């Protein structure tokens, strides 16, 4: 069985890494138009850059502005919790 999130092992580091990506504009700051939850398809998680194994839960997010991003479920949960708090400056 894959790890709970399938990516960075240290939670604080994982949160920090995802937050940095949001602040740098590498991850969007918007809610998904539609999400797909299913088994990992072997793609790479846009948040932690690790592969999403078949026994991990993969979330695919269709963005309202177009395009689709793919994340581990654990990374998705962190991203949706963090992006609304990233409106700095």
């Amino acid at each position, binding site marked *: 069985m894959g790890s709970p999130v399938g990516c960075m092992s240290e939670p604080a580091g994982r949160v920090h890494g995802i937050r940095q990506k949001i602040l740098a504009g590498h991850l969007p700051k918007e809610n998904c*138009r*539609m999400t*797909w939850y299913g088994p990992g398809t072997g793609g790479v998680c846009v948040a932690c850059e690790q592969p999403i194994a078949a026994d991990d839960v993969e979330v*695919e997010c269709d963005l309202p502005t177009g395009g689709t991003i793919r994340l581990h479920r654990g990374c998705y949960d962190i991203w949706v919790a963090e992006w609304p708090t990233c409106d700095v400056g």
Partner: protein
Amino acid sequence: MPVTIVVIDDSEEYRLIVRGLLRSVHDVTTFVGDAASGAEGLALVRRERPDMVITDLVMPGLDGVELTRRIRLELPKTKIILMSADIEDAYRLMASDSGADAFVSKQMITRTLLPVIGDVVRREAEALDREAKKLLGLSPARKK
């Protein structure tokens, strides 16, 4: 207030699985009924006007995609979660085009359905919050 939910699937097994999962969160959800076909399901949705519909994608007669389109037209605020054992790209595209809020693989339903319900409810709450702030002139753009 609990989220009212209708379940539609021609498979009795999956209707029972979903009902069982909902039972574990009965404090925040209320199961209001289920149906074994798209047509029966549409009639139930029209009658009950639930907050959320969890429906199978592939069903004889009125399938999940067409059902989603009809519910979207008649009850645009109702949230819709599609589920399917078929997860090929073509099915995902159909689900996305239908206007559903989420699509869940039946292969992982016991691990994913409750988080998906929570995710859809959260997105709706955030959208309402943003709308309220905009109306009250509290959005960053209006403050400037």
